């Protein structure tokens, strides 16, 4: 039993999907999965862990865990992660393990999009969308629903288009009304879908990439990179060859796993975590008029972590203890 191979778990809990990988010392993916978060990161993570475990043989031991994504704090506490990293760093590290020469990373996820510029294997600049979800996966899925196609099929349909419709790309709301208008004047469905893919690419380039110089090699990742229509749209808009890794949707998780591997702290991860009862209790602290929304994180009714409070006011901490009592 001592000679089990050390492997590393990386989890990326996004707003829409939860991704996980287990990598070996050579950064190769041994087991991976991609599931919907459905507004419940704790459940999604449990399901993910179960599925990753089933893809693994007995001769390995997970010795470090890295977590990224918008629910990283919660899931990091849940998994007892060695590393909890922001998405930008995780994505850059993940991509560099596959494309060490990459200069530009385009990343489009469910709710946000990022642009990362690299030079000599180091991030030198980045941008993230701010106020608006235009040009993200959420936009594509809502339009897919409207058109009655599955979001997974959009790419293939878009590629059959001979003349993509021109759809206003500036804003999701306008893009939507523009698309409805085009549909009512008789544009074919594949042309509309191809037009939407172009709108996503154009929106991305006009917002995030504004004022930034993109250089080749360009790597495209995140859930939307699975959409071949958007990939083609990017190629046409930029004139560059766009590289898409077979694991392009998992790069954040791969990066988190690599960061965990390199963290230098190791302790064996217990897969039984899926049997543990985790819960969170949110509560508005009344210590001052800031009214911090304090979240206590409980493991089998025991307070593990507490966040959201801006000051060390005792009220929040005491409350957490009370919650623990009540849950028991």
């Amino acid at each position, binding site marked *: 039993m001592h000679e089990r191979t050390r492997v590393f778990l990386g989890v990326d809990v996004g707003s829409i999907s939860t991704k996980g990988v287990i990598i070996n010392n050579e950064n190769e993916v041994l087991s991976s999965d991609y599931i919907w978060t459905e507004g419940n990161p704790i459940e999604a993570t449990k399901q993910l862990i179960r599925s990753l475990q089933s893809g693994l043989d007995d001769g390995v031991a997970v010795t470090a865990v890295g977590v990224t994504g918008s629910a990283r704090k919660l899931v990091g506490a849940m998994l007892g992660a060695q590393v909890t990293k922001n998405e930008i760093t995780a994505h850059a590290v993940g991509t560099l393990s596959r494309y060490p020469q990459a200069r530009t990373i385009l990343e489009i996820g469910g709710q946000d999009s990022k642009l990362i510029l690299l*030079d000599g294997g180091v*991030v030198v600049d980045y941008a993230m969308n701010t106020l608006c979800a235009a040009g993200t996966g959420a936009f594509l899925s809502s339009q897919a629903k409207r058109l009655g196609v599955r979001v997974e099929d959009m790419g293939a349909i878009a590629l059959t288009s001979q003349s993509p419709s021109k759809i206003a790309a500036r804003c999701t709301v306008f893009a939507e009304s523009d698309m409805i208008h085009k549909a009512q004047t008789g544009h074919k469905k594949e042309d509309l879908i191809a037009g939407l893919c172009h709108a996503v690419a154009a929106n991305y380039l006009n917002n995030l990439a504004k004022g930034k110089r993109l250089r080749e090699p360009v790597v495209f990742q995140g859930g939307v990179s699975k959409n071949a229509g958007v990939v083609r749209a990017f190629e046409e808009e930029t004139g560059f060859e766009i590289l898409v890794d077979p694991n392009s949707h998992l790069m954040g998780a791969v990066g988190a796993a690599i960061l965990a591997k390199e963290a230098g702290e190791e302790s064996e991860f217990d897969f039984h975590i899926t049997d543990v009862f985790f819960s969170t209790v949110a509560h508005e602290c009344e210590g001052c008029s800031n009214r911090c929304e304090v979240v206590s994180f409980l493991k089998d009714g025991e307070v593990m972590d507490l966040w959201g409070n801006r000051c060390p006011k005792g009220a929040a901490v005491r409350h957490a203890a009370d919650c623990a009592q009540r849950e028991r």
Partner: protein
Amino acid sequence: MPQSVIFTFPRLGDYHIVIKSFLREIVPAAHVIVPPPVTQKTLDLGSRYSPDFICSPFKVTLGNYLEGLEQGANVLLQTGMGCRFGYYGEVQEQILRDLGYDFQFLCFSCGQARLDRVYAAMKRLNPSLNPAQFAHALLAGAKKIHMMDKFNRYMRENMAFEKAQGSFLRLQSNLYEALQKTNNISLLHQTSGAIFAAMNKIPLETPQRPLRVGVVGDLYTLMEPSSNFYLENELIKQGISVSRMMSVSFLFLRSNARSLRGAQGYLKYTVGANGVDSVCQCKRYAQMGFDGIVHMKSFGCTPEINATPALQRLSRDYKIPILHLSFDTQTSETGVQTRIEAFSDMLAMKRKAQAASAAPAFGKGERSVGNA
């Protein structure tokens, strides 16, 4: 004056300490209400009665007034300068009047921002005020501002490296306490000597080449830490030396012509308010070899939007990363934190790679490639 004067004014960083003692000296009979620190309640109150698309400092300062008025203030102070800020006073006064509050509004903005106007207004509140008294209060105020700004600047640059955690904060609270106690100028000089001697003796463990970040942007977002989620402290916590040229001392001494000269090659004309300063300061930081710049503005701040293309060109020319952040009352703290974390990671990784490529074993000269 039929009733006693109770002053209030918007908060800006820690400057309320100085404003309070200044007002107490020139109108000794008056009370001064320092509005409570900015909390969610301040934002909610301010946003409820503000135009939706106004910049966030307007909303926050309106919230300050409302909280001050609730505590009984009846004389409100405001200033204003070369952007929408120049109209804050008039609009806020009207909003507060429409809400039914009874108060006197003293607005020293743009053309009114002159010492003789301040003197005349204060003389009306305190008929026994004489020019010598006024001048003394001004000198004491200026001395205090100078001390605060000097201390805080040093603190931002070095606090990341203090040996014993909390040394700087402790000394800062000593300083603030001393500033509140006296308006006597020679006493202030003494305090100043003692505090700065103590400051220079705070044991530091500064690395040989610390990561340095400069912050530039609009004056309110830079100087009121609650409006930027204490961004400077976050950077300091990551072990970064933070430099900020903006301060009240800076505002008194700045000139557009000088800043425009400093921004040469990037700006030909002024772009409003502190936009020119942002470009000028950014260029200085770039030339000084800083590792990165954080450009902060309130959402929709026109002068800073005007400055942005120049900043982007600076970033390209000097290969210095700039993090652009916009804040308003709806900004998510998590989003800001993610960006700051990624920014400091990026700077640290860049530094590590530079060190590696400088070592002969690696010698690939990766950094000289590119820019074709």
